Structure formats: structure tokens, C-alpha cells
């Protein structure tokens, strides 16, 4: 059987490609509209992406371990609703945030428990909890919206680092992204995720705690979603049950575009970050150029497809060319 011959380098190639595409998008964007390459616009653009980017970090880990968490957006909604309820009940904000983060972790724990204990496929489990958590958001907050958050806190979601155009949440994102990258690429834990994702049985036979690792990943995913919920709530100064509806697809799209294999075992943080921003930049540039919304939707879909199709076709062309060149003189003996 022919083995899919995809050494690690071709992945690096894809990441480099995404980064080049980001640069290209910035360049083209600046031609499309002169307001594009302004600090204010870039600041808005990135602040609009922050929740997606945050959740994409943990989603990267989850997908590399060959699982998926589709319930993230619902966790955001549920946690946002809880934050609103707590605030409306006069719970002090720091405590309310802590409880919210705890609820997110709990939601992640339930996902992880169902996946690891009962051995259910995560796609099925998180489709179920997608409904459950969104439902709980409505159960918590119903048709109400809580909006009277104190300016100190909303400024954390909305404001800029004094003297700059950098949105405050982006600072949090940069820190968390760095931590995630180090954990994934340079620690035994990160290493083990690749093995678990590529062959769970072999990972278990190598003494890796597959179940526990996955449980941790789902908890992290829930926790990160809760953190994103806090930022979301403050950024819009609005706690509603339908917050972040449908966000999961944007997150998954970013992760896949970033070169993470949906089958697990392959991917990197930097690629995902580049991809999330690539989507954001393209959408922003096209919106500025008054390209209608439906085209944006199409472009997002095409990007996703091309991100995998492109390298596949390139590899095939390369292989064909190699075969042709080999027909001429075989060099050297056996390797």
C-alpha cells in the first residue's frame, strides 16, 4: 500500500504559505482601500477576531489529539449568560468571573468525560452539548439581556492599551498564544498529543495517559471558551443567551486552514494563528471594498478548500515531475 508520504517539512511549507498569504492580503488590502492599513482599522480588525483566535488555540490542541469540540460557541453563550446573571444578582465581578471560568471548565469536563469514559466520538458528544449548553444559556437568561456592566470591566474588552492602538484583549491573546505554542511544541505533554492523535492505541501502549490527556484538553477548551465569553461579554457590554452563536464553525475553519489535520497528529499553533488572521484580514479588506457579504461567505469556504487542495495538488505535481526526472539517469546505489 502506498504510504502517504508527507514529511514534517511539507507542513512547515504550508505554514509559511499561510504567513505569506497574510502578507499578501495586507498588501492587496492596502490597495483596495486607503483606510485599510491604518492603525485604527487593524486594531478593530484584530479585536473582532479575538474570541475566535483564543478558542482556536485550544481547538488546535484538541484537533491534533484527533478529537473535536463543536460545543465551544455554546459554552461561550452559556458562560456569558451566567456572567450576566451573576452580575445582575450583584455578585462582585472578580468572583463572577471566577465562577464563569469554573462553569466553562465544568462544561469541558462533561465533554471530556463523555468522550473518555463512555468512549463516545467527540463529534457526536459535542453536537449534543452544543444543543445542551446553548439551551442552558437560554434557561439561565431567557430573553433577558444584561448590559449594565461597569465601565472598568467593559473597557477591558473594548479599550486599547493606553497610548497605543492595541486592543487590551489582544495582549491576553498574545500571552496565551505564546504559552500554547510552547506547551504544544516543546513539552512532553505537547509531544504526546501528536502521538495520541496519530495512533491512540500505540500511544496507550507507550504508557501515555490517553484518557487523562484528552480530558485535560476538553477542560482547557471549556476554560478557554469561558475566558472568551468574559471578553465577549465585556467587549459588547452585553450578556445574552445567543452570544457567539455559530462561532464554532469559524474556529474550526481557522484551525483547519492553519494546517492542522482533521485526523489528528499534525499541525502547529503558528499556522492556526496566521490562518485566523488571514480570514479576518480578507474579510475586513473585502468589506472595506464594499464586496457584498455573500461573496465573503464564498471566499471563506474556498479558502478552506484550497488550503488542503492546494498542497495536495502541488505534491502530486511534484511527485509526477520527480518520476519523470528519475527515468533519466538513476544516481548512486541504494540509500
Amino acid at each position: 500500500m502506498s504510504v502517504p508520504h508527507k514529511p514534517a517539512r511539507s507542513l512547515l511549507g504550508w505554514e509559511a504559505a499561510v504567513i505569506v498569504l497574510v502578507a499578501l492580503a495586507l498588501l492587496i488590502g492596502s490597495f483596495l482601500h486607503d483606510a485599510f492599513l491604518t492603525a485604527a482599522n487593524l486594531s478593530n480588525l484584530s479585536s473582532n477576531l479575538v474570541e475566535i483566535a483564543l478558542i482556536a488555540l485550544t481547538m488546535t490542541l484538541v484537533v491534533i489529539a484527533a478529537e473535536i469540540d463543536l460545543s465551544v460557541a455554546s459554552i461561550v453563550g452559556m458562560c456569558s449568560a451566567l456572567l450576566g446573571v451573576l452580575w445582575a444578582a450583584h455578585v462582585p465581578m472578580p468572583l463572577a468571573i471566577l465562577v464563569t471560568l469554573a462553569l466553562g471548565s465544568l462544561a469541558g469536563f462533561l465533554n471530556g468525560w463523555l468522550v473518555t469514559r463512555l468512549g463516545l466520538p467527540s463529534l457526536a458528544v459535542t453536537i449534543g452539548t452544543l444543543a445542551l449548553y446553548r439551551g442552558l444559556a437560554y434557561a439561565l437568561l431567557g430573553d433577558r439581556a444584561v448590559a449594565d456592566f461597569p465601565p472598568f470591566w467593559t473597557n477591558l474588552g473594548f479599550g486599547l492599551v493606553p497610548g497605543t492602538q492595541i486592543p487590551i484583549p489582544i495582549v491576553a491573546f498574545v500571552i496565551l498564544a505564546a504559552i500554547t505554542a510552547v506547551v504544544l511544541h516543546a513539552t512532553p505533554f505537547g509531544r504526546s498529543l501528536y502521538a495520541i492523535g496519530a495512533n491512540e492505541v500505540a500511544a496507550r501502549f507507550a504508557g501515555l495517559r490517553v484518557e487523562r490527556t484528552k480530558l485535560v484538553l476538553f477542560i482547557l477548551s471549556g476554560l478557554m471558551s469561558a475566558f472568551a465569553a468574559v471578553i465577549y461579554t465585556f467587549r459588547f457590554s452585553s450578556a445574552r443567551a445567543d452570544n457567539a452563536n455559530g462561532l464554532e464553525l469559524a474556529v474550526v475553519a481557522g484551525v483547519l486552514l492553519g494546517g492542522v489535520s482533521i485526523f489528528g497528529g499534525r499541525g502547529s499553533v503558528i499556522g492556526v494563528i496566521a490562518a485566523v488572521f488571514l480570514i479576518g484580514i480578507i474579510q475586513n479588506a473585502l468589506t472595506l471594498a464594499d464586496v457584498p457579504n455573500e461573496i465573503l461567505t464564498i471566499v471563506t469556504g474556498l479558502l478552506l478548500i484550497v488550503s488542503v487542495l492546494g498542497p495536495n495538488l502541488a505534491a502530486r505535481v511534484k511527485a509526477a515531475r520527480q518520476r519523470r526526472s528519475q527515468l533519466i539517469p538513476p544516481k548512486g546505489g541504494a540509500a
Partner: protein
Amino acid sequence: QTGIPKGITVAFLPKQVNNPYFATAWKGGQAAIKEFAGVGKQVGPSDAGASSQVSYINTLLAQRQKAIVVSASDQNALVPYLKRAMGQGVKVVTYDSDVAKDGRNVFVSQASADTIARDEVKLLAKQIGNKGEIAILSATPNATNQNAWIKVMQEELKKPQYKEMKLVKIAYGNDDDQKSFTEMQGLMQAYPNLRGVISPTTVGISAAARYLSSSPYKGKVALTGLGTPNQMREFVKNGTVSGFALWNPEDLGYLASYAAAALVSGQITGKEGDKFSAGKLGQRTVGKDGVIILGPLTVFDKSNIDKFNF
């Protein structure tokens, strides 16, 4: 003759660009912009989420539009961003669905919440003889307008003349045709004694009417609410629905455009009592809290429905 300079840029930002209701409103808005020789466009998300509207506000700001005419998906979420826009000299008009009042210059309201809610209750009460169980089939649970109207309806129902009417359920069709359809069907199952339904949303009422018209409850359960004549014509004629109401969404957009132009040209500032001329709609006055009211609802029934086409 209007005193509006040429070339004013006006951007419409509806909740959803693909919604037929907003498409109609934009038709009116566009017509007005043409009349005062402005430059108009409509942009917006395909899904009704507050966060997607925010990114549009930001790009409109970056594009230096003179006025933004927005129907808000969330009463609060847009406020900080709209404030920033106003801080940079952009005039903000809300239409159809308002935001907190410091987030805009004026709100062009289809009708006051009180009028809408009262008229709806009155319409239904007449159809069921002020008696029996009723339900409301709303849009999304967070729809600002609908929630405001429902609140007034609940107050209204406490009045003595409605004491024999009992609101048993508020259902949500999420402004999704299929969901509204099945919600309506669920209502009939869960509440056998239901006499009437109010659906204050154009998507909800047409789906509900469609369900009723093909069910044994046709003509037995009254249905009213807010709908467009084109959607409802068939059901009025076949006796499923005897009457419903709406304003003219085209006029709503038209008025919003003129309000935006009046703000930009400095004719009004949004103060109570400011007056401006709104083309074919004549002279209009800004009311309390910067609200400009389009006018009373039109009630549609067998006798007049064929006179309308929207």
C-alpha cells in the same frame, strides 16, 4: 429646495441583508437617497448576530461615511461602537430596532411600542370575542422589538376588558420559517383550548398562517400580528386570517434616509421638536428621546389587502 447638499454618503446596516423585510425597507431608503442626490449603500451580515454588525460599523467608520442607518440586533452591544462613530462626526440613525438612546442621534420608529402592542391585542380580542386562551409566537428570544411589544401586551392584557383572555404561552420561532411553522404546530398540540395567536413578526405570522390553512384548526383559531400583504394575501382570502397589521417598511427606510440627511446637513440635531421635511412623507418632527414616528399601523383585511403590494 430641501437644503440637503448633494453627495451625502448614507450606509444602511440592517440586522440581516438577506431578510425580505429589510430588502423592502432598503428600497425605500434608496429611493429617498436618490431624491436628495446622496450616495447610498446597504451592507450587513447574513446572520442576525450583534458581533457581526460591529465589524460593519467599524468598516463604515473607516470608510468615513457621513451617516449610518442601523437596525440593531442588540440594544446594548453596538452602543460603544456607535458612540465612537458619533464622536468622529458620523450621524447615527436607528430604524426598526433601536439601541440605548445615547448610542444614536435619532430613532425612526415604525410606530410606538404602545400603539403596536395595543393594536395587536385589540385586533385579536375582536376576532375571538375577548375570551379564551391565547399565545404569542415571537421571533428570537432576544429580539429587542418583539420583547418590548410583548411586555406592553402583557400589561395591556391586565385591563378589565381583557380579563377573560389568558396568555398561556410565548413561543419562539427564531424568525426561521421552518421553526416558526413547527412551533405553531406544537402550540396547537400542547394547548387544545387555544383560541388565538399573535405573531408580531413577519416570518412568524406567515409560517403560522401556512400551518393553520392546511390544518383542521383553520378558521377556528384566530391569528393576527405583523405581516406583509404579499405574504398574507392568500391566507386572508382563504379565511385563515381575518386581519393583521403593519406599517409600510418602504416608508420606514425612506423616512430613515431623510432623517439621516437632515442630521448630516444640520437641519436637525435630534432634539425634541426639531423639524425636517421628508420628501413625499412631508414635514416630520422629532419627538421625545429623539424618536421620529412613522405613523399609525395599517390594518389589512379582505377589504383593502389588494390595494397594497409589498
